[in-house]
């Protein structure tokens, strides 16, 4: 049934439909609307789940480690500083092979204290062993959250579903909310591959010596590779039931494009508008939307970008001393090609600054008019600043 929902509420509806059994969360703007609704559902019995309020995000994820180890489906949501505080447990969850699903609402890290959207919080967790999926709109948020449980439980790795603060989390859109019966066909109740059992006691995650640590980590690496193929299978299954699919990446008019803009999150929607305008003017331009970031869809990226002359990667994030994170990863992916497009790295929209079609057009024109990027990272829309004496 179509309903007009906030992005946050699309998450909550998906969690309700997923028959999650334990939710733990600590409120933080802009994540609060998600857990507000879920806690209300738990309190009113609309969800048959235990909601564990905690005093910090660190405890929140630790509580889910316990719950998921006991063999139940779990969920949490956080943002920015909250995700940063979880960092230690993020590593633990993936190596303990616990299929926890989390939603991270992208928010800038402080200081300067800022509640608006910025991807640095989730992207700086890229090496924690979590699968990361970035969403563009409310429907994709709902669909991806449901798929995330299937994917996580399939490969026994945790999944982070990522959405932009406010532009997505607080924006109302029509969202098709599927029936419980249909969702149950796609996502049956959780059957854990291992769980703590007092009748047959054992210890999970004990000391692992150098003799086996590498093998254990290698198994995680294989699982992450497997996630790539599994994701496609799960998407197909989902499409068969609900007629919606997104792909690990989405290439729009890339086949004959000379310049391709690479985006993620809500900037993608804005770029779609610009693309129509430019194509109408005869510009040979394409768009590559990055949905999956971990595992990084190297093959799909090479397939989409391989024939272009230039690639403009728009990063709403920054890795100090290196550059935009998507740009780095795209460059690394393209390295295996014998002939590679020139990659321009653009930094835009940090701390929630609006990225409009004008901003995107400026990026396109800059890319078109120069043969090589003037810098590793080109910061767009910087104002003159006055320094205090």
């Amino acid at each position, binding site marked *: 049934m179509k309903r007009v929902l906030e992005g946050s509420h699309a998450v909550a509806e998906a969690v309700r439909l997923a028959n999650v059994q334990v939710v733990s969360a600590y409120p933080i703007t802009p994540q609060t609307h998600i857990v507000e609704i879920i806690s209300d559902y738990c309190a009113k019995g609309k969800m048959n789940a235990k909601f564990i309020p905690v005093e910090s995000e660190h405890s929140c994820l630790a509580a889910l480690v316990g719950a998921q180890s006991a063999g139940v489906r779990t969920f949490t949501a956080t943002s920015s500083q909250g995700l940063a505080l979880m960092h230690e447990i993020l590593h633990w969850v993936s190596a303990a092979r616990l299929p926890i699903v989390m939603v991270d609402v992208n928010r800038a890290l402080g200081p300067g204290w800022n509640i608006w959207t910025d991807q640095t919080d989730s992207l700086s967790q890229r090496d924690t062993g979590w699968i990361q999926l970035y969403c563009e709109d409310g429907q994709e948020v709902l669909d991806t959250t449901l798929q995330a449980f299937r994917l996580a439980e399939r490969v*026994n790795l945790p999944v982070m579903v990522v959405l932009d603060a406010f532009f997505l989390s607080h924006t109302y859109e029509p969202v098709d909310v599927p029936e419980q019966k249909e969702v149950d066909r796609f996502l049956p109740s959780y059957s854990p591959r291992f769980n703590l059992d007092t009748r047959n006691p*054992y*210890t*999970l995650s*004990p000391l692992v010596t150098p003799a086996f640590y590498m093998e*254990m980590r290698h*198994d995680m690496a*294989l699982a992450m590779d497997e996630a790539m193929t599994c994701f496609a299978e799960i998407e197909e299954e989902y499409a068969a039931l609900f007629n919606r699919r997104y792909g690990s990446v989405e290439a729009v008019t890339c086949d004959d494009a000379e310049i391709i803009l690479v985006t993620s999150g809500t900037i993608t929607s804005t770029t779609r508008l610009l693309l129509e305008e430019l194509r109408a003017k005869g510009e040979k331009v394409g768009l590559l939307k990055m949905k999956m970031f971990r595992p990084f869809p190297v093959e799909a990226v090479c397939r989409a970008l391989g024939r272009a002359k230039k690639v403009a990667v728009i990063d709403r994030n920054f890795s100090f001393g290196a550059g935009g994170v998507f740009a780095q990863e795209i460059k690394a992916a393209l390295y295996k090609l014998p002939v590679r497009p020139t990659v321009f790295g653009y930094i835009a929209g940090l701390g929630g600054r609006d990225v409009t079609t004008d901003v995107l057009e400026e990026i396109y024109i800059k890319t078109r008019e120069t043969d090589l990027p003037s810098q590793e990272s080109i910061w767009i829309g910087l104002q003159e600043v006055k320094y205090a004496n």
Partner: protein
Amino acid sequence: MNTATMNLRPLFMPRTHETTEGNKTGSWRYLRPRYEDKTSPCSAACPAGEDIARIEMLSAQGFFKEAWETILRENPLPGVCGRVCFHPCEGICNREGFDSSLAIHTIERHLADTAARNDLKPALEKLASQPQKIAIIGSGPAGLSAAWFFTMLGYACDIYEALSEAGGILRWGIPEYRLPAPVLRTEIGRIESQGIRIFTGKHISESELNKLRGNYSAVFMGCGYSRSTPLGVSGETSESVKDGLEFLRSVRQGEKPSCQGLSAVIGGGNTAVDVARTVIRLGGKAAILYRRRRQDMPAFAEEIAMAMEEGVALHELLAPGAIEAQGDQYKLILRKMKIEGQDKDGRGRIVPDGDKTSEVTVERIFTATGADVAEPWYNPPSDKSGAITLSHCQIKFDKGGIPLVYGGDLTNVTKNVTQAIASGKQAAMAIDTYFQQGRDAIESRLASCRVGDGLSLSMEVYMQGARRLRSSHIVQPEEINTDYFQFEARVVQPRLLVEERTGSFNEIDMRISANLAIREASRCFNCGLCNQCDNCYIFCPDVAVIRGRNMEDRHINFDYCKGCGLCAAECPRNAVTLEREGL
């Protein structure tokens, strides 16, 4: 196709069926927790040393009989003290700084009234019978308390009472509207049911006392202060100035003395307030004249406030100067006083305000400035040689070694009901120790029964009850983990309306429901007393808190306790002590 039917790749992940019990994390420990019940400030402040933290814990759980028995181990008169005690316990309550102190006296009264209404019989420990018999002179709070505790320790007691009914000041001094006679009779009935004989209407003279000493192994003198001290001003006669205590006694004996017109009451203590309020109830007008200010009055502030609601006038900084008869009336000449500097006790020092005087014409004058013994020989002899002086009594031995104990008002520095009860208890402990171990043992034996660091003594500790394991450390407010408590308003004492009060001697304070009593008792922090809340069990990261089948025998498994101290930090009431290892 779902995951159940899918061909899943096996997981390579570490797990072990080996127990981790081999890792004795206790070896890391340098701090050591220990379950240690401590002393609540209220119980140390209670002259009777009542185990208040435990009383409230039991009350909160609805164990009213057990809570009532816990009081009776230390105080035979909960119905009386729940009404008339000045409750210093509440003044020092650790909850005061959190929201407001616990209404300890209200719960005490509730427990006593519940026991009375259901005709409960206490099941208390009693030691084996002793051959010695004890005579007790006076059946006021000191005498009743002495009899109760002597009986508990196995001694047969006879009480001799001069008036027609037992109770002393409780029966004849405190007005009915504060302490109804049926309440007192129930308490005395319970004391008598322990096998104590009370001979009423039996005035003991000095020579009769000497005769008694031949028939008993010890005598307790609890004759009290039953006469108001004279004003010492010119024109004072038995006609012009009436004894306030005598007045109260006559009313409680059923007389209805005429109180028409204005009565002046000189004094600032509870007797003065009682006299004034009694005058009002008999249809008169009353003015309290006090030489200091209202805030200096020893009377309970709440009683003063209620007296003024009832129409009693209060005139401060006026001292009686002289009395002149004017027909049927009296002219009272008053010296005006003023405050100049401070006394040793911190109260404002009062001095005459020059020669300023004022006058008031009244129908009668009551003195309530202080009290004294009815007969001079009641007082302990000034010759202290061979005597033992304790905080609440004095023991004098005759030639045959028979001890004569002076107690209650006769020896107490602070003279009130609960201090009198403390005196009776101290006397019983001291004389029992004297009989069993000799006089040299008295001091140390009593010291070992102290509640906290003050003068209050515990009979339960004396009788080797579980309370002896309590540490004497008094729990301080900062030792309470208030994260575990929520603000909750103190119970409001329901009272008669002013209009209902002034027209009768009906009890002013009404009883509260069991629900309210439980709710109020639940506000108690139970300072220093484990109430099995299980916080330590829940928080211990090493599962080192071990509980028995009934959650009793709580102890710590030191093989695994690594001394993190969470149990002590999360204990809401400081019932866990954390110490350096090896100390």
